[in-house]
């Protein structure tokens, strides 16, 4: 039963596993591929928007440059400015430059540089003059360019400035007018408004990063500075590099897709760059409800599949278990019919078949019982085994003959019914003893019993078993004496003859009615020996052949006898 329970559980478990594992695998695959593709798609969208942002940054810088150039071109064409500059008075020149800044309102600094590269006026550092202009290459670039102008991003006192250079021609070159606009928070805010991304201007020099301007709040600025400082020296603040120059950067636990655009290469490995960032989490936010719904749907699917699998398992395993129990009962010999299943599927057919089988087995068992009563169990099983055919074989067997003495006289003394009862009890008892010793009752001949040892099943100790059975029969008879005494019935006296010899054993008779029995001289001799018991006054007489085959008993030699129908003398023993 325990084993059955385990199997039941196992079947249900197995079915659950077979249904749920592939389903979970498929669902997980679907979920993760959806997740991956939305994530990848979002990355692509952000990447594209950052690339557009980079173009916008370039465009914005170009526009600011053009504005600066246009305003300084207008300034240098102004005769008042020309006149003021011509005064060669420092205070007047500085004042004019500051006036210009006030008027145009878009520039934060003006530096006037002589044609040979000496600073004449610097509004960021009033009083500073006569020093070399810090970016002579900018002047060279302007000098070489078709438009006489140049523009660049530079660092002035830890601030990033966009500088534009125009020549001051009156009408020959009097000076270079350098106008600067700071890339400050207002600039990054304007850029953020245009590109919808966080914008920062970051300066990075060996192992150190400073956020010069940013649309991020103070905490995120600090985080950006830290991660930029830790990033690869050649590409600060880039994070892991992705497609199209973007990377993922983590700030305060949130992932940002980051695009870095260099503005200025500093001496050594440092640089100033614009960092455009968009929050990946924010961009993914619209997809989150979809993912949740998907997950819920999947969980529901798994639940439903699990329930169905369980129901299926139950539905299959319950009748199977019932059938198993049924078969187990059948094995124990309980063929009681059970209401056949109403199912029409294979299980229903199986239940029907089991019912048929039980019916068949019951029939067979009945036949076997009946047969066992008519013939010995061994012969019955030999018959039931299906090898029923006429024919015989020579076998060495021991034949035992037992007969009640004076049975005819007894029959005359007692009523017939009492005789039948007495005889049946006697035969039953004797048969039991014979069978308990491994013998087979071949047939009853009136009050006589013919038993075989060594047939149909051959055995080596057939003679010994026969002798033992003869002794046991005598002892059983003693027990019967007590019963007879109590019932005031006459005691029974029996004679037993035992002989061992060759016989022909087999099914004898006609094709429709046959008997398993033995025939031959040995049978006759055993019968004759039984007949000799009265005259030798010995309850049991065995032949020399039996005594030789079953040594170890207290045989009394009774001499030689000539048996009817036999030419030679037979040595016999009493017991």
């Amino acid at each position, binding site marked *: 039963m325990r084993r059955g329970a385990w199997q039941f559980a196992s079947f249900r478990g197995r079915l659950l596993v077979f249904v749920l594992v592939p389903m979970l695998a498929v669902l997980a695959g679907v979920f993760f591929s959806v997740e991956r593709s939305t994530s990848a798609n979002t990355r692509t969208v952000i990447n594209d928007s950052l690339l557009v942002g980079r173009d916008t940054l370039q465009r914005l810088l170009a526009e600011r440059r053009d504005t600066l150039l246009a305003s300084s071109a207008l300034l240098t064409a102004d*005769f008042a400015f*020309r006149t003021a500059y*011509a005064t060669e008075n420092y205070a007047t020149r500085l004042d004019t430059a500051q006036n210009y800044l006030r008027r145009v309102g878009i520039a934060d600094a003006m530096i006037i540089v002589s044609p040979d590269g000496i600073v004449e006026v610097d509004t960021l550092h009033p009083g500073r003059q006569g020093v070399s202009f810090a970016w002579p290459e900018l002047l060279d670039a302007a*000098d*070489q360019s078709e438009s006489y*102008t140049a523009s660049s991003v530079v660092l002035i006192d830890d601030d990033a400035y966009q500088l534009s250079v125009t*020549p001051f*021609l009156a*009408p*020959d070159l009097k000076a270079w007018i350098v106008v600067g606009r700071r890339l400050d928070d207002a600039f990054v805010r304007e850029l953020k408004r245009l590109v919808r991304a966080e914008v920062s201007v970051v300066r990075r020099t060996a192992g150190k990063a400073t956020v010069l301007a940013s649309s991020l709040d103070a905490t995120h600025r600090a985080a950006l500075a830290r991660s930029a400082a830790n990033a690869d020296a050649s590409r600060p603040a880039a994070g892991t590099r992705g497609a199209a120059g973007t990377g993922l950067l983590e700030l305060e636990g949130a992932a940002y897709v980051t695009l870095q655009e260099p503005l200025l290469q500093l001496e050594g490995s440092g640089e100033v760059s614009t960092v455009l960032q968009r929050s990946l989490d924010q961009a993914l936010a619209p997809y989150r409800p979809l993912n949740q719904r998907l997950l819920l749907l999947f969980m529901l699917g798994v639940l439903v599949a699990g329930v169905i699998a369980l129901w299926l398992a139950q539905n299959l395993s319950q009748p199977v278990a019932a059938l198993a129990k049924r078969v187990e009962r059948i094995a124990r010999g309980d063929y009681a019919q059970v209401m056949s299943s109403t199912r029409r599927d294979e299980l229903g057919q199986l239940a029907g078949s089991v019912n048929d089988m039980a019916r068949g087995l019951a029939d067979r068992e009945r036949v076997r019982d009946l047969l066992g009563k008519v013939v010995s169990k061994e012969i019955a099983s030999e018959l039931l085994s299906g090898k029923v055919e006429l024919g015989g074989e020579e076998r060495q067997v021991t034949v035992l003959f037992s007969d009640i003495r004076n049975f005819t006289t007894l029959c005359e003394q007692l009523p017939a019914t009492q005789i039948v009862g007495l005889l049946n009890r006697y035969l039953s008892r004797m048969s039991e003893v014979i069978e308990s010793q491994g013998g087979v009752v071949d047939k009853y001949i009136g009050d006589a019993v013919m038993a075989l040892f060594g047939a149909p099943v051959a055995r080596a100790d057939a003679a010994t078993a026969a002798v033992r059975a003869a002794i046991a029969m005598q002892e059983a008879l003693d027990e019967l004496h007590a019963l007879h005494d109590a019932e005031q019935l006459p005691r029974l006296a029996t004679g037993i003859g035992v002989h061992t010899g060759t016989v022909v054993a087999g099914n004898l008779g006609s094709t429709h009615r046959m008997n398993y029995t033995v025939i031959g001289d040995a049978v006759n001799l055993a019968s004759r020996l039984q007949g000799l018991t009265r005259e030798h006054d010995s309850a049991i007489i065995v032949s020399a052949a039996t005594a030789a085959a079953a040594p170890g008993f207290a045989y009394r030699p009774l001499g030689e006898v000539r048996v009817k129908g036999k030419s030679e003398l037979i040595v016999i023993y009493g017991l």
Partner: protein
Amino acid sequence: MPSRTHTSPLPVVLCLLAMQLFCGALANAGALEVTLVDKAGKPVADAVVEIVSPVVPLPANVPLTASMDQIDKEFVNPLLLVVVGTRVSFPNKDNIHHHVYSFSEAKTFELPLWTGNNTKSVLLDKPGVVVVGCNVHDWMQGHIYVAATQRMAKSDARGKLLIPNLPAGGYAFRIWHARLKASDISKLHNVVIEDRGNTAYPATLELGRDRRIRRAPSGLARDY
């Protein structure tokens, strides 16, 4: 030079007369012939050579007036060579206003918007180069070379110039060009003039960029 073996008597006589006159007035005189090319070997026009040593006083008959006309928003003769003390006028031949000015060290002046003939002339009383512009038309640029002496000349389209009537001997001169570096301008060139014939002086100039605002076709768009 005309050939002495010429058979026609009249030209020979005229020629001899001319030689007589020339040689009689400036006995033993030679000339300085300067050929100027740039780094690429191309002839440099509009360069000025002025002999600064030895200095000779200006002759009395030197004309002391000159003009720089403006036609079609350009200076007609953008490189004018004058001697110190010359009065230069700026006649406006356009029907629009011009505003001629200069912030040069040699002369700072301003002739605010005017049309037609301006009676006011500008006296250039210091040697040097006066760069003249128009405040209305940025591309207009003129140079007035104010020399201390009359011994000067400007190069032609072939890059050649000739300063005649130089007695044999050693001279020092300067070369000026609008696109020449200041250090090159202040450089003295020494030469020994032969008593007859032209003394050739080839020179290669390193010119800077032509820094001037180009005239925009429409007058509206900036040139970049």
